[in-house]
């Protein structure tokens, strides 16, 4: 009797789903080849992602450099414009005229003191000297 019960239990145990195993589905163990394929795919994905991240970071660095160069250019351009304005102010005829008269005590030439000569034209040499 007890032997018959043990046999029945054993049959029942066989029919009960065991933990970690789906009932009725046969699990196939991963072969070495499949493992290698999977590993290769994972490594490739990882490498690709590294390339993408690397590219992105180099893009960021280049962008920083570009912006920095642009800023430098803008500063240099502005500095050039300011210097041009300052040069124009310093060389303006009105300012030079004022300095010449007021600081250096210069006066305009009298009539006859300034003669414009032209090549090939007979002019009194005394005025050219």
């Amino acid at each position, binding site marked *: 009797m007890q032997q018959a019960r043990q046999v029945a239990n054993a049959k029942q145990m066989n*029919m009960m789903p065991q933990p970690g195993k789906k*009932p*009725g*589905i046969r699990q196939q163990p991963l072969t070495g080849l499949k493992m290698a394929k999977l590993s290769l795919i994972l490594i490739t994905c990882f490498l690709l992602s590294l390339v993408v991240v690397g590219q992105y970071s180099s893009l960021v660095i280049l*962008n920083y450099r570009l*912006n920095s160069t642009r800023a430098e250019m803008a500063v240099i351009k*502005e500095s050039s*414009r*300011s210097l*041009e*304005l*300052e*040069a*124009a*102010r310093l*060389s*303006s*005829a*009105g300012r030079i*005229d004022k300095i010449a008269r007021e600081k250096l005590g210069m006066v305009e030439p009298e*009539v*006859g003191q*300034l*003669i*414009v*000569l*032209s090549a090939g*034209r*007979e*002019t*009194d040499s*005394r*005025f050219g000297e």
Partner: protein
Amino acid sequence: MAEFPVTRAIVRKRLIIVFVFTVLATLLLISRLAWIQIVQADELYEQAWKQWNHNMPISTGRGSIYDCRGRLIAGSTLVQTAAAIPSQIDEPEEVSYALAPVLDMDATRINELITMKELSSVYIKRKLDPEVSEAVREMNIPGVIFFNEEKRYYPAGRLASQLIGFAGMDQGLAGLEVYYEQYLSGSEGRILYPADGRGKQLPHVFSRFALPRQGYDLHLALDESIQHIVEKELDLVIKNSAPKQVMAIAIDPSTGAVLAAASRPDYNPDTYDNYAPENWALAPFTSSFEPGSTFKMITLAGVVEEGLFDPNETYYCSGHTVVNGKEINCWTRERGGHGNISYFESVGGSCNPAFVELGKKLGSDKLFQYIEAFGFGQPTGIDYPGESSGMIFETDSVGPLELATTSFGQGISVTPVQQVMAVTAMVNGGYLYKPYLVEEIRDQDGKVIFAREPEIVRQVVSEKTSQKLIEMMESVILDGTGHAAALEGYSVAGKTGTAEKLDEDGSYSERDYIYSLVGFAPVENPRLVLYVAVDGVTRGPRLGVHTSAPLFKNIMQDTLNYMLVSPSEVLGSDSEE
């Protein structure tokens, strides 16, 4: 209890059901995605764009203005503008009270500005002085930002201020600055930066720039040195004669280019709002008045061209003539008139009755034909805002009296630029040019966007007539009313004018005159045509010989020296001493 066996068929059935549900769910999601991405895309994108991106305008660089030798006359420099990002300012009231004394603004106004939450950014005060912007920057207030804007700068100060004009905060407001606004101003740019839900700029995310287009540069025909000579002499006249107005304009007779133009009173472009708006305008282009005897050259050109002028024919000037019962005086009336003079001499002597007679010979139709052909009664088309066209009689309304007065320059109104261009036509072979100020427009790389070619409007008189007119104008300086404008060493020709101004009652004033002189040098190869006028002298001698003639002479002398024009004749040893 009976166990239900899970067979392969059941598993397959369940898998199919799951698969169908998954497919349906996926299709549903795809449909929804398509709805969002395709149907609602524009609307949602617009909403998202507004949420993510904040933008700030960048004002463009205004083009510079150079003279004919590349000398800078107007340029721009960067200054700081203070702005606020309202969403980033935590305590607006405190910030307002802190900023008010530094920016010299009302705290309430600042508070209004920085609490405009609906705006991503708002100006607080623009184009600050460097020390003010530095003081605000040192306060280090979160949400108060700075960016660069350009401020107009005129390195030569008042020089050519009426011609160049001035620019306000964002645009030209007078002179060439406003006339060439579309070229000078360029186009505005923008900074777009991504921000979070609170409007704060996301760190490490790049802003995008819509780059501004720099304005184009103007290269003028004007020469800064000649302009300086002209203005220096105008200031001298102001000092000596204290006139209401004095003006001058210099033209290159071979092209119609304006080499210099100025009038007094003028203004300082850096503080333009401290001056009356009348001072902003350049009188030689915008004001018109009776020309007086300088206009006799038009009548003369007409009779010479029509073959009605005999230089040796004589005329008796008694000091006045009568037209339609009205007496027309000659300036020599008090001393009994010119007496018996030839028509050639009447030009040098500027005899009004003789020119009334010449006007009669020409007839009103022909006279007004020449007046219009020389460009009077219409704008010359110069590239300057607000040019006056003057006023001449309608041909239909011209009777004997109008014909007589017009013949010697009374009863009509013309502008100095019209007069100088008419004389330019008389001395260059008869060609009336369109005057111009801007010779070239270039972009920032120096590429020429626009290059001016001298434009001949028409040939008014023949070269033969031109030569005769030159001879007669030379006689005015050698032996006539313009002798005070003669230059030692250079041959000069021209015509003087004394225009009577109207009193308040509409009659001609006996004290208020405009003394003018238009002429050129050297006679053998005209390099410069110059018009000067002195209006309403209030101090010192009141004749043209003491006012307009020395002004003309001094400008012409210095300019010919500057232009390295050789003297027409060799000076004698007396001059040297």
